[in-house]
């Protein structure tokens, strides 16, 4: 009887070790998440399986039994809400990145480094993510009201469902400029193309992106290891390299 029991334990141990963590990642964080997952596997031997999408969709899926174990949200409200509703483990929530808002145009020289272009109003369309849905959109509206420009500029809004689409509106030239995430226009630590004004952080609430272990990740070593790794200096360097603060 002793031998089979031992074998069973061994199998269980290998299974636990090989069992990858299922992570739902906000779309805006997909590039750094991929790089971090590589380092994570190299350094810890655990694997992370990443799914990218809109935070709101993830919320609905998680509430309806999706097999995610960790959520890297695009905001701080959704993880808190999940925790309150008992779908996430209390005490595991923390801010893994703080987004920076940027006013960006695909045309060089169109956006000045003080954002005066907003006051001049010489454009037809200003793209932003839907403020009702996307934290970057809400931050953009906040910043414009702080600058007392909201009423003047609002008729020119074209709203994207998320900042990825807002970026497409601007990149294709259909909107001359728009509010996007700094992480979308940064390339190797610099502005990739066009012109941009990084909106001062004091004009809007910080765009906190929180992570949390979900109910399905309870007692999973890989899930705990993933969150721990996300806090490591190595991961943070990657996050900063993509234009987030932390």
């Amino acid at each position, binding site marked *: 009887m002793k031998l089979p029991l031992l074998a069973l334990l061994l199998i269980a141990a290998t299974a636990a070790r090989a069992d990858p963590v299922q992570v739902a990642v906000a779309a805006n964080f997909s590039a750094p998440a991929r790089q971090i997952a590589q380092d994570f596997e190299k350094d810890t031997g655990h694997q992370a399986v990443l799914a990218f999408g*809109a935070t*709101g*969709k993830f*919320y*609905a899926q998680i509430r309806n039994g999706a097999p995610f174990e960790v959520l890297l949200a695009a905001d701080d409200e959704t993880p808190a809400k999940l925790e309150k509703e008992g779908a996430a483990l209390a005490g595991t929530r923390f801010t893994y990145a703080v987004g920076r808002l940027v006013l960006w145009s695909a045309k060089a020289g169109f956006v000045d480094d003080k954002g005066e272009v907003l006051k001049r109003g010489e454009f037809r*369309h200003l*793209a932003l993510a*839907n403020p*009702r*849905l996307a934290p970057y959109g809400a931050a953009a509206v906040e910043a414009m009201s702080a600058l007392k420009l909201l009423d003047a500029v609002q008729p020119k*809004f*074209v*709203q*994207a*469902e998320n900042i990825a*689409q807002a970026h*497409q*509106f601007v990149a*294709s*030239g*259909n*909107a001359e400029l728009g509010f996007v995430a700094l992480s979308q226009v940064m390339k190797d630590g610099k502005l990739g193309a066009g012109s941009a004004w990084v909106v001062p952080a004091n004009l809007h609430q910080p765009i906190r992106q929180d992570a949390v272990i979900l109910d399905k990740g309870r007692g999973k070593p890989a899930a705990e290891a993933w969150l721990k790794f996300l806090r490591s200096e190595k991961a943070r360097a990657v996050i900063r390299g993509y234009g987030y603060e932390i």
Partner: protein
Amino acid sequence: MFSPADLAAIWLTLKLATVTTLLLLLIGTPIAWRLARMRSWWKGPLAAVVAMPLVLPPTVLGFYLLLLMGPHGPVGRFTEWLGIGLLPFSFGGLVVASVIYSLPFVVQPLQNAFEAIGERPLEAAATLRASPLDAFFSVAVPLARPGFLTATILGFAHTVGEFGIVLMIGGNIPDKTRVVSVQIYDHVEAMDYAAAHGLAAGMVVFSFLVLLALYLLNSRGRRS
């Protein structure tokens, strides 16, 4: 029951679906007619192009339309040269995108109807002095009536339900491009499920009534 924003979206949706359906019938009928009577090698490729929107995901189609109709795209340059300006983020742009997206839903039932009619009644019409155009309107169109009804239903319903492209081309501007499907999506994403349910239920009931009315009309037409 509905907020003013919802009502505006409903009105806009009806306007978009009506304009789109009318245009689709205008454009789709000659295409379907040609396809149904084509014998040449070109029939395959032409039919494939018309059917493309069935295969491409709406957001992908929307993305390419955004590029095409944008300031650097050929269509965008053409519309600017015409003095219309750029189409994205306008009602006109939504109509263009919807027409392209729903085209196969109108062309295919019409093509099937025309093919089912065949050459025979048209030959008979020709021996009775009807020119090809005359025969088309006096024989082919009335005989293809069930096909036109199906095409109208599908074109209208598909435009009402269309979402991915509208989101991409429309820019979600209230009263201009924010249609019901986008409004529902916003409610859902914002976790305002009550408002979403209301609109969605309204849309389901409305679609059911439209389809029912057309089917009834169709079967009564056949009996008379």
